[in-house]
């Protein structure tokens, strides 16, 4: 059973106004929210403009407080639009998928945790922390929760705040335009923004709601090219767009408008145009109306995807194509005729495409509109586990992990040493940080054990979902330290590219050449198991990959509350080719709903049997918020392979979600 994700409302806090009415009227007037930055000193920087949330231009409170405020405003606005009472969410099997990327001391799931609590969202709250693709991916994953029947209502979106350090990092990289950015236009560089946006996505027919649009599909990919620059030939963007079209069951001719990432930088705009031409061909591509909302809203980072999609929805509803504010003529290498009129241009269309790209090479595209799907959703495929790799002190294999389970002995002290350059002699590992090193080691080992060689099209059909809580401790220290020592005018840019929680996933994908669907997510404690749950659901439903590595990494963060006590990483290869162990049941529910999650897993398995083994995270590794649940899954795989049991349950009460996975030896299923 598959449910179409209906969009029944949305809300924003943006540079063009708080509330969607303000946003709409500003968009229709062709206004821009970019202005000289007044919240903080910009004298250390080359650029001095930004797009702050209207009314908050001078508000220099703690970014976490602003994050929460923007998020609350947007959520309230969305609920109002969808005609849902505040507080009614508790009874509605509601979930939250949030794009948010933090690089301070805060653990990345804290924003989702706090908002879910405030708005009584009892179901799972999943945070996607892939910087500029965060909210785009959050929307895709949110739609999946509806499709899979894991939630009846999802608030999907993203939040970001423009802080001095964020500004400093981008400015130092030389990608900011001194004047307001002109995507696809004559000025090079982008302008940073901020804001929050949420969509209300629901299962149709459950209540008397207006469906404004349907989320038809999404596509994910990785460039596996560079930490900050996109693949100049746009191959990753093209793959994400094609993936979204395939997921939507839509042909390229059906797309009536494209809201591009269009940051205005040299690198992005030309690569994106290459991608459009590659997917749509020169004729269709040349005729496709394209614009970028960043001229209005700036680059809202983790909120870019949702705000840009909402801008499109607002205009679509009025029979208009959003325009590109500030456009005065096309740049060479970009689309020759983007929509660049002063105000949105009249256009009737019922299917739109929106795309975003991020540091680390992540790309995500969405297809949405009033055109309903004409074909049935595909059958769910069975998913199997083919290999696992585990790494920590005292553990360098799943066998050693089994010994830990048996003996419950504490891991040895001292620094975990790995010689990644011997394992990957063909890869330039200079400058790799700790999280990237650990993630790459376990991912490479697991794929090796699974017999997956990343060659040819296998690269595009292999995905990577990383679950973790924060950026690599060493990179965070280097970046923040550089600002402390050298001031905001001279941050360590290499470290800046690495502080994002998604940097490790990007570095691993680049090192191993993994170009398929990928993301970095967190639910706080239990993130590793969440990665596995997400990977399993994606493999079951989608057709764009044959295997996805679900991985987790923890880097010791002694002085941070809830930080990992030592370094660890774990990776599991999930695949659609039958192996000895099947992922027979998966459950996902709210943080206080562990029983519900287990019941879901049991029911999706479809058996009355209770699993023989119940595997918990190994006690000695309790201090590993992301990895310990992943260790449990790896151990379950090992146990079933060894014949210790035929069925196993791995469950976790994570910080913002509860999860359960039931593994079954495939001989059992054949008997049934």
């Amino acid at each position, binding site marked *: 059973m598959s449910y179409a994700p209906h969009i029944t409302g949305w809300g924003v806090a943006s540079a063009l106004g708080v509330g969607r009415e303000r946003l709409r009227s500003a968009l229709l007037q062709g206004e821009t929210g970019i202005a000289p930055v007044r919240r903080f000193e910009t004298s250390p920087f080359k650029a001095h403009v930004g797009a702050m949330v209207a009314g908050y231009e001078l508000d220099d409170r703690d970014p976490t407080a602003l994050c929460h405020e923007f998020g609350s405003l947007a959520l309230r606005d969305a609920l109002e639009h969808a005609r849902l009472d505040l507080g009614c969410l508790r009874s509605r099997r509601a979930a939250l998928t949030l794009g948010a990327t933090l690089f301070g001391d805060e653990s990345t799931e804290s924003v989702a945790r706090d908002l879910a609590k405030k708005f009584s969202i009892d179901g799972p709250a999943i945070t996607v922390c892939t910087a500029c693709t965060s909210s785009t991916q959050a929307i895709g994953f949110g739609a999946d929760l509806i499709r899979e029947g894991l939630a009846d209502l999802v608030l999907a979106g993203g939040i970001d705040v423009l802080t001095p350090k964020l500004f400093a990092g981008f400015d*130092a*990289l*030389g990608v900011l335009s001194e004047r307001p950015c002109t995507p696809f236009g004559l000025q090079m560089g982008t302008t940073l923004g901020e804001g929050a946006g949420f969509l209300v996505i629901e299962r149709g027919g459950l209540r008397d709601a207006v469906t404004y649009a349907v989320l038809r599909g999404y596509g994910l990919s990785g460039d596996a090219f*560079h*930490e*900050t*620059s996109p693949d100049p030939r746009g191959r990753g963007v093209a793959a994400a767009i094609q993936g979204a079209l395939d997921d939507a069951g839509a042909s390229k001719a059906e797309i009536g408008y494209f809201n591009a990432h269009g940051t205005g930088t040299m690198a992005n705009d030309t690569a994106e145009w290459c991608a459009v031409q590659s997917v749509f061909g020169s004729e269709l591509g040349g005729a496709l109306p394209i614009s970028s909302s960043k001229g209005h809203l700036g680059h809202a980072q983790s909120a870019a995807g949702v705000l840009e999609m909402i801008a499109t929805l607002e205009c679509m509803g009025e029979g208009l194509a959003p325009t590109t504010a500030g456009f005065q003529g096309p740049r060479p290498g970009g689309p020759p005729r983007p929509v660049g009129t002063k105000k949105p241009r009249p256009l009737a269309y019922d299917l739109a495409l929106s795309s975003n790209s991020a540091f680390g090479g992540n790309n995500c595209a969405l297809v949405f509109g009033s055109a309903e799907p004409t074909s049935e959703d595909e059958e769910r495929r069975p998913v199997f586990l083919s290999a696992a790799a585990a790494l920590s002190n005292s553990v360098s294999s799943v066998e050693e992990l089994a010994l830990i389970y048996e003996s419950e002995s504490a891991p040895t002290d001292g620094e975990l040493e790995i010689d990644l350059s011997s394992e990957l002699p063909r890869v*330039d590992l*200079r*400058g790799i940080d700790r999280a990237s090193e650990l993630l790459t080691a376990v991912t490479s080992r697991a794929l090796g054990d699974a017999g997956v060689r990343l060659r040819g099209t296998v690269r595009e059909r292999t995905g990577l979902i990383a679950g973790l809580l924060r950026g690599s401790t060493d990179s965070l220290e280097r970046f923040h330290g550089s600002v402390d020592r*050298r001031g905001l005018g*001279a941050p*360590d*840019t*290499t470290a800046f*590219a690495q502080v994002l929680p998604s940097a490790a996933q990007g570095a691993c994908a680049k090192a191993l050449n993994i170009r398929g669907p990928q993301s970095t997510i967190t639910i706080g404690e239990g993130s590793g198991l969440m990665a596995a749950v997400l990977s399993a659901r994606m493999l079951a439903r989608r057709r764009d990959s044959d295997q996805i590595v679900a991985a987790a990494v923890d880097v010791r963060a002694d002085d941070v509350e809830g930080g990992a006590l030592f370094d660890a990483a774990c990776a599991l290869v999930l695949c659609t080719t039958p192996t000895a162990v099947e992922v027979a049941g998966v459950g996902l529910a709210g943080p206080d709903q562990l029983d519900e999650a287990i019941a879901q897993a049991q029911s999706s398995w479809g058996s009355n049997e209770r699993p023989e083994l119940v595997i918990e995270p190994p006690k000695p590794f309790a201090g590993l918020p992301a990895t310990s649940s992943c260790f449990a899954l790896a151990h379950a795989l090992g146990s079933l392979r060894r014949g210790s049991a035929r069925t196993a349950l791995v469950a976790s009460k994570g910080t913002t979600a509860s999860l359960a996975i039931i593994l079954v030896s495939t001989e059992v299923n054949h008997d049934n």
Partner: protein
Amino acid sequence: MTTDLSEYVASRVAILDRVRQILRDTMKLKIEPEAIDPDAPLFGTGLGMDSVDAVELVVQLDAVFGLELANSPLASTKIRTVNTIVDAIMEVRGES
């Protein structure tokens, strides 16, 4: 060696060694500074630095030598190799 030649060489070598050290640290190379050829290209081929490394290098050169490259339109011609960096530093110091 005449005095001014030996003085010139000594100045140059001191700067050369320091620049090699900065490069080694910026790029986290696991080699001795002497193993960085003074005429090896820094970008594209050679040491294989990229634009992100370049930003950090420019910051370091400013911090250690007061060499301001960030706003110079010919910045890209001054940091093509270690020797070109040393040339730029010596020029700033009036020692060339």
